[in-house]
């Protein structure tokens, strides 16, 4: 599936919930299903700066597609990463670079997060895109 389609799917899913408590419950569930990073990659180098809870992200190229794994010490943060990974993992680096991130605004995630978490969200997206840029350079 293309990034755009996955994002539309996520937007639809979030629209089904009546309130933000239900959305939080959903994010917690997503957090529990996050593709876990290997312990060996949980290094300080892989910590995303700008998050108040710890977030580790690892990227790996498999068949010219970028696969992300991640972890966090906070479960809602894990849910947020799970949403991002679902949208961007298993995609070609160039597609990740080109992808827009409007779906975040559409599901209202940013405005419903605390300011520190919203900053963290921006840092996470930036980091995923940076990985894509790095691997795209490698492919070229």
């Amino acid at each position: 599936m293309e990034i755009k389609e996955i994002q539309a799917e996520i937007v639809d899913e979030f629209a089904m919930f009546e309130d933000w408590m239900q959305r939080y419950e959903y994010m917690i569930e997503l957090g529990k299903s996050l593709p876990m990073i290997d312990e060996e990659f949980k290094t300080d180098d892989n910590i995303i700066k700008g998050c108040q809870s710890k977030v580790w992200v690892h990227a790996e190229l498999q068949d010219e597609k970028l696969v992300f794994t991640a972890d966090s010490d906070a479960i809602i943060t894990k849910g947020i990463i799970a949403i991002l990974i679902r949208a961007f993992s298993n995609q070609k680096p160039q597609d990740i670079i080109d992808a827009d991130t409007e779906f975040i605004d559409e599901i209202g995630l940013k405005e419903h997060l605390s300011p520190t978490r919203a900053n963290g969200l921006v840092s996470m997206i930036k980091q995923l895109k940076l990985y894509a840029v790095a691997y795209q350079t490698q492919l070229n």
Partner: protein
Amino acid sequence: MLKTTLDIQKIRKDFPILKREVSGKPLVYLDNAATSQTPQQVIDVIVDYYQNYNANIHRGVHALSQEATDKYEQARVKIQRHFNAAKPHEIIFTSGTTHSINIVANGFSSLIKKGDEILVSAMEHHSNIVPWQMLCERTGAILKVIPMNQEGELLMDVYDDLLSDTTKLVFCNHISNALGTINPIEEIIEKAHKVGAAVLIDGAQAAPHLVADVQKLDVDFYTVSAHKICGPTGVGMLYGKEDWLNKLPPYQGGGEMIAEVTFEKTTYADLPHKFEAGTPNICGGIAFGAALDYMNAIGFKAIAEYEYELLTYATQELLKIDGLKIYGTAKNKTSVISFNIKGIHPYDIGSILDKLGIAVRTGHHCAQPIMDFYKIPGTVRASFSFYNTKEEVDVLVKGVERAKAMLL
């Protein structure tokens, strides 16, 4: 039912913000240690200033300037009387506690030399750590830490050992923002003075709960932020003994703080203006005085008794939650409860509580050394004020239970 004689429902009507909703739920504001809410009586003073006598102070010949100057100086006297300072000019208006501490830390640069020792408590806010570290870097002085125990109480016998002839300064908060511990500042001050050291007490967290008598305490410097005691943000005070304030050089240069300026030399104004360069937060200073009037009309004794009841009740109810641990269990503590639930990150609890309309603080509370001491990333902190109710404690406890059920 709680035993208080205060009419809490009547008091709550003074605070317009308490009527609002958050996420469709009535606001339960339990982040009072970060900032307190503002009563209508103080809001009215702020509006009155801008509607009727907004003018620059101490320099205009016109009526408005005189009115504003009078009100501003009356506020200084109110603050002086409240903290029982000997003289009005021992009260310096600042932008808040952080500014106050920096004035002293900066001023001591010229009074401290290499090898001198500075003692700081293990439970300080970053604002009472970083300025002293900077002072040590500038001067070569040594920063030493008064440790604490698991309950969050300072180890006073270690303090005794740390004190020596080379101790020049001691810094400690009156009440810890992260743990609520009321520190034995009388003893700290007395012992520091015996070795000739000066003492700064950060009163930011104490001012909303009790009245410090600076003369009785014999403290050298005491700092307060107005926004913790129902006043506006961006204004506070530095109390300093006259002798000390005369010894310290000015912190900032500018208008108002001078006696005479030529390009060759400037002579500084007398206290308090020496430390009040530029146009101050005039409205804020006046509102600070109004906030003290408001709190005093309710009465600090009644406030302290009621907040203690809230603390006791909240502690007892929160501890019924399995896996909940409270950090800061000093015998002498104020209405602050820092806690975690086993296996759950404090941010997650805070996020769920927010969606239930409950405002708490999560994180390290600008006191990372305390978090390092307990080996935790942070805590959830609920801090209660005299306008909070027993029912709000119940909402908190239910909220924490719900968050726990969702998150575990």
